[in-house]
């Protein structure tokens, strides 16, 4: 195909003279190419004698894979569907490889998605689509129309139902309440015969369009239904092959007598019938999807070819089909999977009628078309990601303050938390020898109130909640029905019918669901409020914590494992006395609106005490010296209280609690492994380090630090029983280590209680 200005003839029906057209330029493989107003990118290339993929039957309707190119950096663009614009940069895909990834520009264009709700969505605005849309509107429906001709390509129908389209303005997600109407018409059947990869072969409708656009087609031979509006030479008989080097030069036909006739030509127009564009209908199986017009028609089935490429996307030939059939693949869906025919760019638009024809010809019944799945078009990563968001990580009210203080922020327990303020050991010693504050706002916090609050917690927790007096707190494990540890935290009794529960930072969301689920299941009369995100918490810890609280106006702070309301440095707080660090500790729970004020006032009041904030890294060192576990780090999915050496936290003489029956049962099974304390000289091994007894693997380290106060490495780790007991001497990273009781530090707990 060449620009008609350079040819000798004139196509009939062509009314636009190139000399009358305003010309602009785009670039194809670095070569300037002129185009005219109204040209598609494909037509502009064909005018310049360039076939985007080198050859193959062109349809000009977005069905075939033969006009793909990289346009302005986006690969796999159907150039027949894109209007030519001045300055466009087009690169043809390599003939023997996929287009290169745009490694030099990974950002890609920003793509937005809009979400639209309606009663009916009509896809395709040909005659039948317009009729369907008008009818729905007459019935008072809110109708959305999507038309590929207007640059709105529907790329998929999903359960929901949801129709996703790519438009010039971005992605559109349409949610129809009632119906999806597919009015996408029918595609023309392409030829399958040797030589069908040559340039110069077009469908009948494409031939007409090219002629109307003013392209010179030369001598046109029509196979099947001729193109409208142009002069053609009709080729009778059965198609045998296309002859030519790069471009078709002749077609060879076979008549009824079996004799071949060669017809020289410049262009071949193919009119072999129509196949409904019903991929969206087949995709919407089970949804309210209806096809109208040609999209609802029955597909023409071409005669079975003897040879040639059937699927250009996957390079499947008739020989390949024969081969897989001989190996037992007789079902259409299986042939698709065995050959990949129908899985490529055109999603079966070209090959589907021929595979059906092939199987029918080989004695199988005419099988229905294979299932269609999104997406029908190649999408950019930006288009796929449009409307998707990364999961956000919440920040405490002190997030800005931590960053201002130079903290290295990390995601820990599902939150942004200060890992260290730059001097982890200094932060550690501030806790051990002076006073420090830490942001523990991330801890789960839940209020439980109601006549059945005590009943709920008694059934839920393995501790005796009834013995907990108002104003007191207790460490608790949260178990599942199998007796495995889900989480840990505190139960704090506020009054007869009201409690505060705390959970770990990472476990609080699930713990809330757990508590609510059981409360609902047992139909208990309770009220539950999760305050994790509305209440801040600051941990004041260290030998001078009493002094700091006194300066903050709390001269009589609660005793160990007690709690009460107090005004601290002018801020109303619930003060919980406990200890995770091994030193005197007070958790100050308060409104998040007051976090910044309270934090700054405490730092100011403790300035001459050498107060420092501590980050998570220091906190993990401190807690490990005390042997406190971190659920999820030191526990596994099947950790029972016995396995983590926490049987003291489970009161089996209670009549019932979640997990009790499982614990009674598993306690009869000999212990196979246990979480144990370990220590060794020298630096701490990495968490996860393997533990050996001689040449036998006996476990792994779950937590490990070099203890500044003890001058050696301390660890928690899982140990298998070796010859009936936990090994006392083991090897870790090639060095000797000893099993020791926990806590490693202040085993009497006198410092925390002082």
């Amino acid at each position, binding site marked *: 195909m060449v620009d008609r200005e350079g040819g000798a003839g004139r196509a009939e029906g062509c009314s636009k003279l190139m000399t009358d057209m305003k010309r602009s330029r785009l670039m194809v493989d670095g070569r300037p190419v002129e185009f005219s107003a109204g040209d598609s990118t494909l037509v502009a290339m064909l005018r310049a004698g360039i076939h985007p993929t080198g050859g193959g039957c062109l349809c000009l309707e977005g069905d075939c894979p033969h006009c793909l190119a990289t346009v302005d950096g986006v690969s796999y663009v159907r150039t027949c569907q894109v209007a030519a614009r001045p300055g466009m940069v087009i690169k043809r895909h390599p003939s023997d490889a996929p287009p290169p990834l745009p490694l030099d520009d990974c950002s890609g264009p920003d793509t937005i998605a809009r979400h*639209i709700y309606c009663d009916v969505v009509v896809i395709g605005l040909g005659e039948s689509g317009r009729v369907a849309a008008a009818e729905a509107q007459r019935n008072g429906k809110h109708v959305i129309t999507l038309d590929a001709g207007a640059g709105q390509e529907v790329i998929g129908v999903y359960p929901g139902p949801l129709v996703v389209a790519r438009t010039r303005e971005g992605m559109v*997600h349409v949610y129809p309440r009632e119906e999806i109407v597919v009015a996408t018409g029918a595609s023309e059947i392409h030829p399958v015969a040797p030589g069908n990869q040559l340039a110069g072969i077009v469908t009948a409708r494409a031939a007409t369009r090219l002629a109307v656009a003013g392209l010179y087609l030369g001598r046109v031979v029509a196979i099947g239904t001729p193109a409208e509006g142009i002069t053609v030479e009709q080729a009778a008989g059965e198609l045998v092959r296309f002859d030519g080097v790069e471009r078709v030069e002749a077609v060879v036909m076979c008549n009824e007598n079996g004799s071949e006739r060669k017809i020289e030509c410049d262009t071949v127009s193919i009119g072999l019938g129509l196949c409904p564009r019903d991929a969206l209908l087949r995709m919407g199986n089970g949804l309210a999807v209806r096809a109208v017009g040609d999209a609802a028609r029955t597909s023409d089935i071409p005669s079975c070819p003897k040879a040639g490429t059937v699927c250009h996307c996957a390079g499947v030939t008739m020989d390949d089909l024969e081969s897989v059939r001989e190996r037992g693949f007789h079902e259409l869906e299986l042939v698709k999977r065995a050959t990949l025919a129908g899985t490529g760019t055109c999603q079966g638009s070209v090959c589907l009628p021929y595979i059906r024809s092939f199987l029918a010809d080989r004695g199988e019944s005419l099988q229905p078309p294979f299932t269609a799945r999104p997406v029908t078009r190649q999408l950019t990563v930006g288009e796929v990601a449009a409307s998707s*968001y990364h999961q956000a990580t919440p920040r405490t009210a002190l997030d800005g303050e931590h960053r201002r203080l130079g903290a290295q922020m990390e995601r820990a327990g599902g939150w942004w938390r200060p890992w260290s303020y730059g001097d982890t050991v200094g932060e550690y010693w501030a806790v051990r020898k002076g006073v420090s504050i830490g942001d523990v706002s991330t801890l789960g916090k839940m209020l439980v109130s109601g006549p059945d609050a005590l009943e709920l917690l008694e059934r839920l927790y393995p501790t005796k909640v009834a013995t907990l007096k108002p104003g007191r707190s207790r460490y608790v494990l949260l178990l599942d029905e199998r007796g495995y540890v889900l989480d840990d935290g505190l139960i704090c009794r506020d009054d007869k019918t009201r409690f505060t529960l705390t959970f770990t930072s990472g476990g609080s969301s699930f713990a809330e669901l757990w508590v609510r689920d059981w409360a609902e299941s047992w139909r208990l009369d309770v009220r539950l409020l999760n305050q994790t995100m509305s209440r801040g918490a600051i941990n004041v810890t260290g030998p001078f914590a009493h002094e700091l609280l006194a300066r903050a106006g709390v001269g009589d702070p609660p005793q160990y494992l007690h709690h009460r309301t107090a005004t601290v440095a002018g801020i109303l707080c619930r003060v919980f006395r406990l200890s995770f660090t091994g030193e005197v500790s007070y958790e100050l729970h308060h409104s998040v609106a007051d976090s910044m004020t309270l934090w700054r006032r405490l730092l100011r009041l403790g300035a001459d005490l050498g107060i420092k904030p501590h980050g998570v890294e220091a906190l993990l060192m401190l807690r490990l010296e005390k042997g406190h576990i971190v659920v999820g780090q030191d526990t596994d999915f099947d950790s029972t209280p016995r396995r983590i050496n926490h049987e003291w936290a489970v009161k089996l003489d209670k009549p019932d609690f979640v997990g009790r029956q499982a614990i009674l049962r598993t306690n009869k099974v000999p212990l196979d492994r246990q979480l144990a304390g370990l220590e060794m000289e020298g630096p701490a091994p990495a968490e996860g380090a393997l533990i050996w007894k001689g040449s036998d693997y006996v476990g792994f380290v779950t937590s490990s630090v070099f203890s500044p106060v003890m001058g050696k490495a301390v660890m928690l780790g899982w140990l298998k029983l070796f010859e009936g007991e936990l090994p006392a001497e083991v090897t870790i990273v090639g060095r000797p280590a000893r099993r020791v009781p926990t806590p490693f530090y202040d085993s009497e707990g006198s410092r925390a209680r002082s």
Partner: protein
Amino acid sequence: MPDLKLLHGTRIVGTRAVLDAAVWPQNTLALRIAPDEVFVMPAISADFVNDQHAIVAPDAGFAGAWIVSDEALEFLQRSCEWELPRERPAFAQGAVAGLPVKLWLEADRVLFLVPAPYATDLEERMA
């Protein structure tokens, strides 16, 4: 970029019947965020809740901002994968821009609320 501020109010958890029957003071906005839970702005006293076991807690756990309707709806059309109520005023809640957002939609403006720990993310995603 909207400037989300902490919203001071009262979080109330009570029985469904009590909350259904409650009459909130004039000039307050009561958002029923669950059958057993309501968030009232500005803060109110516990006297309005006829349930001795109700949890009535001062609360600043949401950050929010009023956005004019056109701007808000334009953002929601891009960022909200569920259908907004058509009536006004209306309360709605769900994922917006991947965050747990609550919306109070009036004729000419929309109040966006998000748990305060996600305020920065919502600001960035609305920018």
